[in-house]
């Protein structure tokens, strides 16, 4: 019985054993390419959701804030954090409007974003384009990686 099961596997007869390994490898590859979207998302549970990226000189904080003007935003920086606060207002429509859907939310929010290294709070710049906020946060000299030449 056992003997027949082991040797009766169709894949061993028709394909080389490497085909099975190849299939397994492809499945693993797919698993790893799909992985980041689920594990990188570690939302802090505070509005707005932010994406933090960095290059050698700056951190970039991005958040989606549709329908907000730059005046409604309050951005403050310390030596290692940036706070983003404000109030999103949705102006009232005419009194005779009857709603089918009302999903967009208005309200206040504030969030503090801790940065992994020291920053230069005086040079923080923010930009709000098409409802996407981009805060450019220059790293402090002390926090920047230095090129060390080997003699």
């Amino acid at each position, binding site marked *: 019985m056992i003997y027949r099961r082991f040797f009766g596997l169709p894949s061993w007869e028709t394909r080389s054993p490497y085909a099975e390994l190849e299939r397994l490898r492809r499945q693993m590859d797919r698993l790893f390419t799909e992985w980041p*979207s689920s594990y*990188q*998302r*570690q*939302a*802090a*549970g*505070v*509005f*707005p*959701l*932010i*994406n*933090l*990226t*960095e*290059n*050698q000189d700056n*951190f*970039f904080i*991005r958040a*989606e*804030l*549709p*329908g*907000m*003007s730059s005046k409604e935003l309050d951005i403050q920086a310390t030596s290692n954090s940036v706070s983003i606060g404000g109030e*999103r207002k*949705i102006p009232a*429509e*005419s009194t*005779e*409007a*009857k*709603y*089918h*859907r*009302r*999903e*967009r*939310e*208005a*309200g*206040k*929010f504030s969030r503090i974003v801790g940065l*992994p290294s020291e920053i230069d709070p005086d040079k923080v710049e923010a930009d*709000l384009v*098409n*409802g*996407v906020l981009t805060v450019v946060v220059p790293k402090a000299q002390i926090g920047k990686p230095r090129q060390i030449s080997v003699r």
Partner: protein
Amino acid sequence: MTDSKEIKVKEKQEVSAPAEQTTPGAVFTPEVDIFETEKAITLLADIPGVKPDQLNIDLRDNILTITGDVDPIAAKAGEEDVTIEYETGRFYRQFTLSEVIDQNKIDAKLADGVLRLNLPKVAKATPRKIAIKAG
């Protein structure tokens, strides 16, 4: 009325694409407000990151389709992800309109990532007040 309310964090709603896509990427449902007055239906949709030329509004056979593409973030050279809480991709949503819309008078505005779409009703679809005479 919403003075003291705080906005709760909400993850973007991802949808599976209606048809198989030729370009890879995620598809999201934008949040909308839809309201109706006697003369028109107005739709407001949050589509942050969509530029006017990347927005496509289509109305045929009473089906309104909104499609907006967003340029991928951090596309600039040398940027590395530290924390990623939201993803960007295409915005897509379809609605079936029950009223007859005057196609020539549709008016769309996109400001600060919010689309405001005004769909005027055809004159005959606007309700008329029927006067009742006392007999």
